[in-house]
């Protein structure tokens, strides 16, 4: 069991170099976040959906993620039109639904779904350790990259330790209820996990020193930039330019 797995696969998206994927995702997310009009937002959603299809994201987990975002959006869709001041567009049960409210809720929903789809398809498909190395090549500060890589390494160690302790508690007839005994027991569980991990952190530092570590990390893995990556860069640049045209050049993007 693992709580840190990416969407593995062998599609064209999976085989792309992670570095241009990171850059493209970031630029795309920023542009979508900046835009306000329906044509561009719909185009963004289409791009996100296309990427998700290309990456063959498995339906059930993807649906769960989208539900997590859209659950909140549903609340917005129900609340915003009623609570935003403005001209009523229509009324249901005597509640006036304002035009501004409907507009705002729809825009937020479109943006969120477009970004989530693209983000999941492009970055959710990178093996996590490779993502860390890609950050390194993109000049993210070294300490942050190593913090990221170490965090990955210890996620599963901790997860296992947690499962072990939780089972031991259950095996001794523990049942979570709403009382101080429960909070204290979970507190002990968490603290014991921390104590053991903090001590482990010291031993890991020792192990690194023993292997000649003198305060500077050296990376071993490198990426190869293939022709398909060049094609991806070109296509994504074009798509992003087109997106800017649709949103910001008055009437320009659309015939």
């Amino acid at each position: 069991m693992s709580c840190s797995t990416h969407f593995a696969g062998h599609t064209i998206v999976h085989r792309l170099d992670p570095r241009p994927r990171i850059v493209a995702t970031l630029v795309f997310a920023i542009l979508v976040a900046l835009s306000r009009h329906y044509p561009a937002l719909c185009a963004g959603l289409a791009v996100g959906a296309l990427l998700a299809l290309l990456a063959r994201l498995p339906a059930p987990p993807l649906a769960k993620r989208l539900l997590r975002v859209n659950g909140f959006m549903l609340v917005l869709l129900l609340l915003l039109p009623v609570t935003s001041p403005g001209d009523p567009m229509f009324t249901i049960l005597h509640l006036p639904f304002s035009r501004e409210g409907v507009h705002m809720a729809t825009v937020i929903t479109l943006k969120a779904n477009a970004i989530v789809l693209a983000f999941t398809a492009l970055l959710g498909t990178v093996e996590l350790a490779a993502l860390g190395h890609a950050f390194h090549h993109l000049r993210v500060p070294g300490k942050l990259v190593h913090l990221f890589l170490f965090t990955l390494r210890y996620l599963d160690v901790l997860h296992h330790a947690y499962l072990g302790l939780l089972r031991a508690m259950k095996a001794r007839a523990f049942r979570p209820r709403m009382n101080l005994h429960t909070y204290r027991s979970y507190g002990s569980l968490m603290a014991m996990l921390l104590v053991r991990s903090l001590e482990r952190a010291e031993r890991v530092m020792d192990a690194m020193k023993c292997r000649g570590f003198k305060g500077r990390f050296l990376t071993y893995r490198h990426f190869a930039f293939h022709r398909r990556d060049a094609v991806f860069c070109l296509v994504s640049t074009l798509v992003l330019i087109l997106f800017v045209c649709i949103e910001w050049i008055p009437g320009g993007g659309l015939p």
Partner: protein
Amino acid sequence: MHITEGVAPASVAAAGALLAAGGVVAGLRAMKDEQIPRAAIMASAIFAASLLIRLPLGPSSVHPVLNGLAGLLLGWAAVPVFLVALFLQALLFQFGGITTLGLNTVVMGAPAVLCYYGFNRSLRRCGSARAAFWLGAAAGVTALLFSFLLWAGALVLSGKSLAVIVKLALVPHLAILGVEGAFTGFVSAFLFRVYPRAFEIPRTLGTGTLS
């Protein structure tokens, strides 16, 4: 208490990202190379705990936020630690999101740093596990309360009409305060008895390097 993808308009998201970047740089400078494994283990613990531990509350359950605890144990390094934990949550589970990553880092990280300044020193000097419990509990409550205020502020800045969400969230969050306080208190008292070194942080805001 994450700000969901797409909710914050560009200006608010950008302001959050800038603030977070400042905090992360400060945190990285404060963190020595030797502390990287320790910070990483805290990041995994925070990530795992918020995912796995469910504290029963009435008919439902809540997960601990732990940013008060992170501040007590990490100082300024809590900010990059939250950046990493939140990035992983967004990437793997779509809690929060990438355009709101900066905002969420501020919402979680700023109260952590506040707790460091407010409670770390007294915790190191206090004389009994009971005192450690109350100091930890105070840190947990303070951090969560402050996080809620930041979260509410960011939402209201994003659109006046979003204030209604804040009103809806107020009552459940007040209930959570007690649970978070008790939980952080028990963890602090445990650490105080078993591993008091946990509260020693070699150096804060320093002039170290970024890489």
